[in-house]
């Protein structure tokens, strides 16, 4: 795991060029966009792996757990590296199979139920994606991104079959990204998984499986047609609003985080749907930020559950007095997700709002601002019920989470602050090359 992270950091200087190589009959390539997602996957993956050293003790089956986690990471890394739709689909399935098993890892009723729900809905999604792939292969005879782009630019784009395929891709990958109204599986699957897996699912999987695929196809291949952008913008708005409103009523720590993920995915889609430079940079930056702060918050919730044995926030209270590291790091996550500077989340939201204003989408800008107040509202509620305050008598014997778990959350909390403070370097080194891949030149 560490090795993959180091190797992807070593690729950082190469962000501006596209490297292509061939293996197993498939083209692999790294460009700015792949690199951004590679970094996201492997940073979060490494933190989750460190965290699990102590965490997975009470589940048992350490070897099985780690091999599944590695399989998940391998699948995700594959998704972002391949150069054609079919291989993308294959690696997506590899990652998904690992995810289905990991969701049911506790082998209790709710875990297995959630896993089945996830499996069944994902099958629908992959079915739609496969039909889309078939339609494209039938019409153009190629599935390679670069060749497809040429074919589409060469007039084949007017073909209604392509728009049909585009619709299928939006629905299929939208389901993978848990965009409202395709979100039903996420609030069940994310809470019942072990905490590091929830962190992987919410932080990384929905982004690679959903957002990355959408971005790669609609910006990389379709060159951002206006109709698709409008659909993305609309889906984004609905997700942002619905996710935030439902999150407000949750009493289960991890379900609240899961709904908030839906809401934040909405922000990312809004940025993409706006489609100008600010919007895309903001969306890609938000992918990075959301991966960091949401996995941080999920790992915090795992630490709380590990010590208290419950996820019901009504039973908690004043845990900062006993679990100081968890309390402080969760404050970092809260402030970042609400968009309070100098944390990372602020700058990505700023760019998304700037994008909306520059594109003269006043309503979108206003809603994005309004729902960031809402986000802060329900996260303050969470803080108030769980960490900030007088200690609930019940938990006077509580201890801080074990060392490896604390190290992982401290690393993520530090990252979210540093990404905010040094946002200029992050933007220049990681986000802008990715945005340039999508928008070309600039």
């Amino acid at each position: 795991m560490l090795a993959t992270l180091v190797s992807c950091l070593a690729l950082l200087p190469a962000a501006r060029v596209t490297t292509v190589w061939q293996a197993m009959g498939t083209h692999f390539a790294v460009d700015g966009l792949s690199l951004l997602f590679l970094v996201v996957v492997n940073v979060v993956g490494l933190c989750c792996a460190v965290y699990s050293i102590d965490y997975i003790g009470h589940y048992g089956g350490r070897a099985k757990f780690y091999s599944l986690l590695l399989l998940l990471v391998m699948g995700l890394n594959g998704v972002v590296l391949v150069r054609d739709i079919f291989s993308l689909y294959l690696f997506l399935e590899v990652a998904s199979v690992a995810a289905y098993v990991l969701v049911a890892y506790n082998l209790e009723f709710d875990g297995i139920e959630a896993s089945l729900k996830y499996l069944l809905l994902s099958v629908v999604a992959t079915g739609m994606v496969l039909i889309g792939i078939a339609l494209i292969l039938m019409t153009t005879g190629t599935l390679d991104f670069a060749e497809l782009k040429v074919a589409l630019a060469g007039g084949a784009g007017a073909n209604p079959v392509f728009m049909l395929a585009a619709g299928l891709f939006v629905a299929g990958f939208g389901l993978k990204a848990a965009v409202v109204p395709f979100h039903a599986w996420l609030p069940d699957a994310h809470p019942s998984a072990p905490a590091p897996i929830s962190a992987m699912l919410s932080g990384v999987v929905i982004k690679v499986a959903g957002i990355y695929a959408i971005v790669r196809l609609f910006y990389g291949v379709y060159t951002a047609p206006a109709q698709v952008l409008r659909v993305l913008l609309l889906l984004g708005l609905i997700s942002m609003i619905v996710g935030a409103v439902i999150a407000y009523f949750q009493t289960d720590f991890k379900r609240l985080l899961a709904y908030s993920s839906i809401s934040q995915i909405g922000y990312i889609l809004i940025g993409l749907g706006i489609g100008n430079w600010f919007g895309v940079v903001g969306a890609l930056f938000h992918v990075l930020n959301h991966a960091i702060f949401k996995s941080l918050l999920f790992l915090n919730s795992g630490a709380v559950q590990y010590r208290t044995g419950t996820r019901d926030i009504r039973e908690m209270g004043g845990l900062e007095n006993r679990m100081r590291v968890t309390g402080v790091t969760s404050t970092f996550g809260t402030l970042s997700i609400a968009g309070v500077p100098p944390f990372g989340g602020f700058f990505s939201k700023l760019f998304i709002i700037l994008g909306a204003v520059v594109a003269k989408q006043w309503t979108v800008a206003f809603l994005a601002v309004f729902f960031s107040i809402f986000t802060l509202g329900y996260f303050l509620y969470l803080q108030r019920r769980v960490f900030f305050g007088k200690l609930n008598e019940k938990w006077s014997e509580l201890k801080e989470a074990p060392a490896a778990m604390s190290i992982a959350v401290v690393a993520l909390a530090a990252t979210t602050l540093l990404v905010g403070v040094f946002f200029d370097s992050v933007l220049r080194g990681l986000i802008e090359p990715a945005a340039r891949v999508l928008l070309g030149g600039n």
Partner: protein
Amino acid sequence: MDLQTTALAIIAIPLLGSLLIPILGWLRRGKLTGYVAVALIGTAHVLTWTLLGPAMAGTVVSFKIPFYGNMVNLSLTIDALAAFMAFTSSLIATLIAVYSLGYIEHGDHEPEYYFIVTLFLGAMMGLVFSTNIIFLYTFWEISALACWRLIGYFREPDYIWKADKAFLVTFGGAVLMLLGFALIYGQYGSFEIAELKGKPIGAIALVLILAGIFSKSATVPLHTWLPDAGVAPSTITSLLHAAILVKIGLYGFARLFCNGLVIPHAWHKWLLVFALASAFISACAALQETNIKRLLAYSTVSQIGYTFLGTATGYVGALLYIMAHGIAKGGLFLCAGIIEHGTHTKDMTKMGALFKKMPITGTAYLICALSIAGIPPMAGFFAKWFVISGMMYGWYRIIGTLAILTAVLTLIYMLRSFHTIFLGQSRGEAHHEGAPVMVTVVAILAVLAILVSVFLPMPYALAKVAAAQRTIFSTLAALGR
């Protein structure tokens, strides 16, 4: 040191130095944290003295440390306004930090308290020198999150709720303001206040930005969080009211609209009406209060309304007002802290005849209360004089008269509170004077409330320079006078 290095040091010493404090807490040296905080804040204050001379001579130094594109730069401007605000805020904050040594008990949360107080002052220092909107906003929000942790310091359930309320209201206002900034960026393509100088601002952006400013400086109708924030430790309420938080809104207004963007003429009168309504309504609310800290909070809302009147009419008056009100209100809240420690209540009807037990606190309270009410020779009188005379010269006679009426109300509720607390029948048991360090700080603030008027020419000269450096916007100018 040249001015640039000094300004950077004034920001960096409290902002980065504050990080030492949680480390001390972690090393179980919690008892040292208070002294470290006093040292950091005090150093920043001493450094602001070196800015006063050049600022008084009219020097303006601006410089830019490029950050991201042409969008976000660390641009700092050292002018009379910035020097004046930095000096006043850090002076009061230093005194409050010293007072905290006697006020905050040693305990689990002590390092957090001093860490955030120092961070808070650092954010304020960053704010007054920044002339890039994004940096301004960043410091603005750091102060909001500092205030969230500090208001909930005592950790009672409804205190936390009130802390959350304060955070949500100020954050909500701030993001609306951010949207306003985004609109400005969409229109003019810049976040640099220097580049926006003299540009007219659209109505929607103006309303959005005012929402942020008014929520921060607790102006009616966005003021309710401020009286509620009285559940914080008295040092913190003092910090919020006198030195930092509500002054941020005022400073933001001065920096953005007196030294930058231009508010269209049609809005000027409505701003005055708004500020006056805020001053008057909250003075009436203060008449009703029996909780000492809520009374003082409503009084702050009222005085902030006055200061807004001042920025719109006579700029000099507004700056003097910020200084006079800061010193006096800081003193009053610290007195309230001593009283609360001695009597274990905030309800004024349960106090009485405290003067015999707490002569120094009582005297200081009276001096500060009279300064707020605007009785000569206290500093508050001169500030009020400049504001009201500014309005009269501007032919805003009705508003000016109502402002005088509000001043009368202020005198009534201030004297009544003094009477209820310190004179009359005793209605409680065993009271005692506060710890020596606390009483000393309160006495210093009371002396300052008088000294400022003795040495009035100095702050007056500085305010005058700031008024001259202001590029545009005064209702007087608008009326051609």
